[in-house]
């Protein structure tokens, strides 16, 4: 038993090493980081975190990120729910092709869309707002959410719909009171994936914002170039960036595998 657990333990330690290094760096001073190899902080400091929480240019980066990620997640899932229902329950002309075409939207690199989005949002006055980033991310996230939700919905027998109608439920009432709670796990997983892709995406987020809605990921790279080597500060910002993802993963941990299989397990 003990022998067998060595391999996974070593593997997990290996995986955790960069995260450990990031977290320890965030509690070190920049001088110590540059000074030499220290496995844990010699002069433990919370200054890096203090700076982030007191400087609006830093913490507003988090606010901006959370803002567009939240808008994007709500928007993507709200639009994907009826679409996924239609794909799962009805047959219509070209439904299979359209369903596949949705997924092909994910195959284009984000850089392709950076220029048209930049020009378009500048023209309509959305540039440098959370909405610009949120809307551009729906291009990738709605197809994904539709695929995930369709998988979960197809796992619900259509007899459930029929039973509800027989019981007297109208369609909207059935959808909200019966269907959505039935696929709650699927909605959670779809939200998580939308959150994750929007949270880690940087190219569009960086291109479509300037000052007001600059996301944290973009701020981190900018600071590296302007204010020299403030490595401790960057490490603290990085650590804080990991937290929302970890929190969301905790809530959907039991369903993530099914989500990666696009609900088809």
């Amino acid at each position, binding site marked *: 038993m003990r022998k067998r657990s060595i391999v996974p333990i070593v593997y997990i330690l290996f995986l955790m090493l960069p995260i450990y290094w990031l977290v320890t760096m965030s509690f070190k001073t920049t001088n110590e980081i540059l000074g030499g190899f220290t496995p844990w902080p010699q002069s433990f400091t919370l200054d890096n975190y203090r700076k982030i929480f007191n400087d609006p240019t830093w913490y507003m980066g988090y606010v901006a990120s959370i803002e567009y990620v939240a808008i994007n997640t709500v928007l993507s899932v709200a639009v994907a729910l009826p679409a996924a229902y239609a794909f799962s329950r009805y047959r219509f002309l070209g439904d299979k092709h359209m369903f596949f075409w949705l997924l092909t939207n994910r195959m284009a690199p984000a850089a392709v869309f950076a220029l048209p989005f930049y020009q378009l949002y500048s023209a309509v006055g959305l540039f440098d707002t959370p909405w610009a980033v949120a809307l551009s991310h729906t291009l990738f996230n709605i197809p994904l959410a539709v695929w995930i939700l369709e998988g979960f919905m197809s796992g619900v*027998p259509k*007899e*459930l719909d029929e039973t509800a109608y027989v019981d007297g439920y109208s369609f909207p*009432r059935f959808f909200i009171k019966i269907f959505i709670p*039935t696929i709650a796990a699927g909605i959670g997983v779809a939200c998580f994936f939308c959150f994750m892709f929007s949270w880690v995406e940087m190219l569009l987020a960086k291109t479509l914002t300037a000052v007001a809605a600059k996301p944290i990921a973009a701020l981190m790279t900018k600071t590296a170039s302007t204010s020299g080597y403030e490595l401790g500060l960057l490490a603290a910002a990085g650590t804080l960036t990991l937290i929302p993802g970890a929190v969301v993963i905790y809530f959907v941990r039991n369903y993530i595998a099914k989500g990666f299989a696009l609900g088809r397990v």
Partner: protein
Amino acid sequence: MTLELKNVTKSVDGAVHIHETNLTLEEGTFNVLLGTTLSGKTTLMQLMAGLDKPSTGEIWFNGKNVTGVSVQKRNVSMVYQQFINYPHFTVYENIASPLRVAGADAKTIDARVQSVAELLRLKPMLGRKPAELSGGQQQRTAMARALVKDSDMILLDEPLANLDYKLREEMRDELPRLFADRHCTVIYATTEPTEALLFGGHTATLHEGRVTQFGPTGEIYRKPSDLISAQVFSDPPLNTATVMKRGNEVMLGPNISWYANDAARDLPDGDYLLGIRAHHITPFQQTPDAVAIEGHVLVAELSGSESVLHVDLNGTTWISQSHGVHPFEVGSTARLYVDVARGFLFDRANRLVGGLA
């Protein structure tokens, strides 16, 4: 609550699912739709319930045309083969939901739910979620939800098919009791002839989207109008063989013949198809009129107190089902007694022309 199907058909993408059907189900009767899988039982039920619209034809309910009326406004209930319950509701909420939607007051709801739960022995489970129940309890919850409102029509689509043997027997006994003091029309779909016989009432035999016969169950069983109805209403499958009638004699092959009985005597001479149920072929002589045949044993099954034999005679397989233990070696020669007086005779168009059962 008379339900009438008038010239109803249903096709999807050019494929005919239901051929032209005329059917009248009287108020307060128990009706069985009997047919194999894919015979159109479920489609027919969806049309009856209003979950689907017929391609042509009309559906009348109590003298009113309800063809375009949505299912929500029809006051019907339905129970499926799969155990369909609302997973996030408790058993109580599940049963109460049709009344909640209809806007009944809390007192009425509680009284009705409690009485139905009592009837279906669900009282101790009312606080649980469907996933925490056994299969039988889940199906009883679905049944309770169907019974809680005063439906004009209750549709049961193979409700016992997914239950294990013992529960199925148990619920078979319970079912007629549940509908005893209601005046709703019950429609029960099943693939098993035994269930139809057990419930009595009326039976419609279905085959490939066509209602081949409809009438009181016993009558359909004893006097199927054609070969297909007889085959649908036969388990194990109906034995069939071509026979030749010459004068007073009926011949099966060159060596086997018997005297035509009253029903067959008046038929014109010619070829007929003999259909005979497995339990009218036995390895022992039941009546003096029985005709003996001999063939090779292909299959010999003993299940408890019953013996099933498959015997090959000149390329035709005869199935015998009899009480008692009658062991035979596979490959050996068996002598079977065919009670030909109990057989059906079908003409070339497969219509019943003679025979008693």
